[in-house]
């Protein structure tokens, strides 16, 4: 195993999916995030709360179709952390491929 520093807040697969959606949109609604991640409401809430606590995600409420909906968006630190995490993953894969090619 090659040691490399990655952001533990974005390590869980569901959080990585949430982060990918938020990195490519301005905001996403709770039910859309649930559909994409395929997790339950409570699990998604836990992941979002953890990301909010880390300062990566901002949650807002707004009415849609007469119902209150929760929208999530990345904060600036969240966007930067995801970009750094992506670079870390890519560097890790690239270094492994270089090691294989060198053998």
């Amino acid at each position, binding site marked *: 195993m090659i*040691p490399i520093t*990655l952001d533990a*807040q974005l390590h869980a697969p569901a959080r990585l999916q949430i982060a990918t*959606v938020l990195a490519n*949109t301005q905001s996403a609604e709770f039910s859309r995030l649930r559909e994409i991640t395929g997790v339950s409401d409570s699990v998604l809430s836990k992941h979002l709360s953890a990301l909010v606590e880390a300062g990566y995600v901002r949650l807002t409420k707004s009415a849609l179709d007469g119902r209150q909906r929760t929208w999530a968006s990345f904060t600036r630190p969240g966007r930067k952390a995801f970009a750094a995490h992506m670079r*870390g*993953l890519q560097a890790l894969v690239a270094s*492994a491929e270089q090691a294989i090619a060198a053998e």
Partner: protein
Amino acid sequence: MSRETMSPAEARAALESIGATRARIAAVGVCPPWRHAAFGAVMGLLILGLGFPLGVQVACLCVAMGLMVVIVVHDRQRYGMFINGYRKGATRPVTALLLVAMMALMFVQIRLREQGADDWAPFAVAGAAFLVAVAGSVLWSRAFRREMGL
């Protein structure tokens, strides 16, 4: 910020998961033809108003803004996501080109009005704005989907 280690295989799987999620975003965000036409209508109305006196300009602006609000509300309901047209990435050159084209058409419309051009001229320029905006919207969507890996 806490840090963690990961094996190359896990990193590859994570990157594949990111790719799959991006493809899902692109699949969700496919725009129907009328959505491109609605955007074209907003831009066409904005340009059309400039060919007429202030009262008509204000009326066109109000209708165009109202239509824009309807589009944004619809997008949020339909897609459950909001994607900023000015976002960074492959779509930005398309946005920049569209803005330049619209500015040029605004300039043409104002000049024609000042020169007292024929009655049909404002409609011709607005029609051109509609077509350019529809083409820009289609190209923007394609660039976005390509960037998302579809």
